[in-house]
């Protein structure tokens, strides 16, 4: 099946593939294609695992992670724990093209993004609020904490470290709808 050009992406996110493909067909670069394809998913909130309004953390906030890499120059731009900015892949590209760094994180990444002209806005939606509320009503289950008190498999926090560390089998919480 060797044939160029090529766009391939994880999961059945057809519109993202189509967006990237259109860029290549119109003479755009592979970086433009990847940025446009991933951005499409951010706008469409692909299966809830991309973009704003999905995967709220323990405090109910949605944060975004993104990366872009140029296979010719080995330049990379990435953001992690990006707050209040919807276009994470765009910010990642700005990190690559507007700094000599590779990865910016958290609130500082958001400030960088704002300085680069990205709009700051709330990433919370009714859906993410609902996911968060249901989690609170379910005694904060599933839960990624361990060796803390109160027992995180049954209770919400705040948590304190337990005096002893106990080895337990790691629960598998990742799934089709909650993944990186």
């Amino acid at each position, binding site marked *: 099946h060797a044939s160029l050009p090529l766009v*391939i992406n994880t999961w059945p*996110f057809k519109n993202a593939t189509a967006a990237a493909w259109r860029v290549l067909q119109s003479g755009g670069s592979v970086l433009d294609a990847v940025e446009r394809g991933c951005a499409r998913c951010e706008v469409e909130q692909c299966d809830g695992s991309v973009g*704003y309004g999905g995967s709220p953390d323990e405090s109910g906030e949605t944060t975004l992670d993104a990366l872009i890499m140029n*296979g010719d120059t080995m330049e990379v731009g990435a953001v992690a724990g990006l707050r209040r900015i919807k276009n994470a892949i765009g910010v990642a590209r700005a990190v690559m093209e507007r700094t000599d760094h590779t990865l910016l994180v958290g609130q500082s990444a958001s400030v960088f993004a704002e300085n680069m002209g990205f709009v700051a806005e709330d990433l919370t939606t009714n859906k993410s609020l609902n996911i968060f509320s249901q989690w609170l009503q379910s005694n904060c289950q599933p839960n990624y904490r361990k060796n803390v008190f109160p027992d995180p498999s049954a209770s919400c926090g705040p948590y304190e470290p337990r005096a002893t560390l106990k080895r337990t089998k790691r629960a598998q919480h990742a799934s089709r709808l909650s993944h990186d």
Partner: protein
Amino acid sequence: TIGMLAVDRDGHMAAGTSTNGMTHKVPGRVGDSPIVGAGAYADSSAGGAAATGDGDIMMRFLPSYLAVELMRAGADPSAACKMAISRIKRHYSEFFGAIICANTTGHYGAACNKTPGFTRFHYMVSNSKSDAPLLKSVDCV
């Protein structure tokens, strides 16, 4: 999460990822997606790869980097993807994850770890043969 690879007709390659991560994570937690060599990797002299799944586990093995290096050493993309998954499986047999691989000649492949409820992984491909996005899938190993 989306992980994407693009290759132009001259073999220039780029990779990207975008995600909002795992639901109910501890605030501040970051998965594999923005980590070079974990969530994705691209080298136009060898190939590219992008991973998806349980980033807390996958980022410990740099599966995208591993797959690209295997392709550099001559492995075809499907074999490289499978080997990257197998490396993780040795230590975490029940991890949730998948990976896509492509080389600079336009060959591609994918692999995933078989777990209850996850036996087949779907991904999208568009190339000059299809000229439109095609849904592909692979049986998990």
